[in-house]
């Protein structure tokens, strides 16, 4: 190029983009390595003898010694970690002592249940929580604000298993508005061919609308409960972000220009509040994806939370480590996603490399 610009040595736009992508990849790789080290060490530190988990406590000493060597426990720790790392990268997380199946297979079975529940829940929480938070901020100190505050407070403080049981009692046992525990009635279970494992999606794609209605009727109560908890948090955060934005000078500017109030609130202020809200929603979603043990127990939901708790109680370390790694990956993934959304929403972040 003939016309040269002084760019402070940052190079061309393409190079900068590549550099940015490389940096991002390096960050993700490092985070995962750290995660692997931590999960691996936890697996070695806990007072669970993996040999006993395999052979039981009645096997003779000779068997014990053989399995000890087979599992590679006689080698130095770094060598064990290296082997663990290689296995993980080839997609081998070991076998569950409990179910006798590969961990990946187990997780592929339980995770979609949690993913589906969490997604419906976060949708409910966001769709309700953001408008409620906005409303509370606009009506600060007045009745609407108090109503939202009390609703949020109940959401924070009522134990979810109690609300869950109450919900089942009222909406399932008494009113019969929704279906009971479980993901689907047995009658419909074989009507759907599992593709994604997300029953709502599978049944809709296959045009099984009766099954879809049944699945929906099962998921709506637990999802509404979990969504209520995220709504409580999201509405509180939205309120405080909005109060902050509505006090800014640019809001006065908009008023001076004669911009209608609804536009000031929903376009000017909310668009700015959306930037920190992305993180709030992403973290709420990540929390839901961990799987809520109590909700899953009350609603007999075969999800990740139940699986990990069950594995932990039975000292099934391979399953616990696999699950932990998955949750870690979810957190990393969602953080990455919210960073990307940040750049989309805030032009000030866009320019910085």
């Amino acid at each position, binding site marked *: 190029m003939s016309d040269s610009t002084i760019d402070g040595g940052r190079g061309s736009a393409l190079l900068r983009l590549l550099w940015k992508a490389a940096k991002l990849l390096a960050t993700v790789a490092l985070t995962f390595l750290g995660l692997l080290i931590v999960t691996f060490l936890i697996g070695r530190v806990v007072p669970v003898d993996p040999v006993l988990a395999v052979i039981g406590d009645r096997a003779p000493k000779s068997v014990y010694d053989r399995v000890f060597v087979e599992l590679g426990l006689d080698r130095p720790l770094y060598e064990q970690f290296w082997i663990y790392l290689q296995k993980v990268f080839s997609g081998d997380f070991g076998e569950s002592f409990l179910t006798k199946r590969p961990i990946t297979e187990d997780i592929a079975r339980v995770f979609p249940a949690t993913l589906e529940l969490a997604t419906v829940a976060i949708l409910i929480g966001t769709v309700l929580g953001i408008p409620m938070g906005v409303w509370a901020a606009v009506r600060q100190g007045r009745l609407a604000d108090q109503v939202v505050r009390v609703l949020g407070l109940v959401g924070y403080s009522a134990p979810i298993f109690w609300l869950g049981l109450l919900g089942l009692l009222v909406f399932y046992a008494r009113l019969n508005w929704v279906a009971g525990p479980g993901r689907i009635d047995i009658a419909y279970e074989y009507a759907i061919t599992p593709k994604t494992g997300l029953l709502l999606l599978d049944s809709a794609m296959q045009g099984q609308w009766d099954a879809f209605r049944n699945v929906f009727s099962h998921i709506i109560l637990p999802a509404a409960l979990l969504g209520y908890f995220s709504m409580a948090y999201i509405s509180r955060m939205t309120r405080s972000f909005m109060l902050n934005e509505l006090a800014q000078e640019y809001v006065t500017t908009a008023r001076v220009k*004669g911009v209608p109030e609804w536009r000031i609130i929903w376009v000017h202020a909310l668009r700015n509040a959306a930037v920190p809200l992305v993180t709030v929603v992403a973290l709420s979603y990540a929390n839901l994806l961990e799987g809520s043990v109590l909700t899953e127990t009350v609603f007999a939901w075969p999800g990740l939370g139940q699986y990990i708790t069950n594995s932990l109680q039975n000292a099934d370390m391979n399953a616990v480590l696999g699950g932990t790694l998955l949750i870690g990956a979810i957190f990393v993934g969602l953080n990455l996603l919210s960073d990307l959304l940040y750049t989309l929403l805030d*032009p000030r972040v866009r320019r910085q490399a």
Partner: protein
Amino acid sequence: MTTLLTVEDLRVTFPTRQGPSEVVRGVGFTLGRERLGIVGESGSGKSQTGRAILGLTPPPGKATAKVLDFDGIDLRAASAATWRRLRGARMSMVMQDPKFSLNPVMTIGKQLMEALKFGAGETRAQARARALAMLEAVQIRDPERVFRAYPHELSGGMGQRAMIAMMLVTEPDLLIADEPTSALDVTVQVEVLRILDRLVRERGMGLIFISHDLRLVSSFCDRVLVMYAGRVVEELKAADLGKAQHPYTRGLMNCLPKIEGGVRPLPTLERDAAWAR
């Protein structure tokens, strides 16, 4: 001269823990299509006076007045719809710092167009052409670029020019400029003032210029109100500044350093509790 704005006994009160605190205490003046300066120190109530005229006293503050009349419209009884029709279209305000007064996530163009879209009814292309012409009028050399830019991509001087463009594009009758150059570099200040001065003169609008800088105000305005502790302590023609009677005004003038025949020590401002009464 036709009267554009009449203010009589304007009071702005904020509730505090120690009871209500009156920050503007009975301000009155009339304004035609002229340039009126309001000078005073921080907390003298000059900014709140400006905001009260636009009905933008920040809650929980309250503004009351015996008369607040804008071109025959009683602003005290104005409905939300009346305010929306007036603001932007007929009266507007340039604020201190473009870093805060422009929406950071909206392009300058979008913010400019917004003033037009809700001020007058016209097509998008017409509005865009007018917005670009206005950016040119505030001496922005590359209006297309600024139109697409976000506020953080502009310098302070550019941002303030964009702000002025945004406030004048609807050709209002009254402009309130609240310390429009205080956040800018000294070199840029003069330029921005010159642009503002020219536009106000050309369009023959009424201007209320709020500042703490007495010298700046007197060189720029026809008349000057001096405010102290929520009251107007003196009103005079800018040309008659030398004849100022009030000790506070004299103090404001005397505490400025002079290039020739330096005064040492520089006199400090005196404050008399009696002026605030």
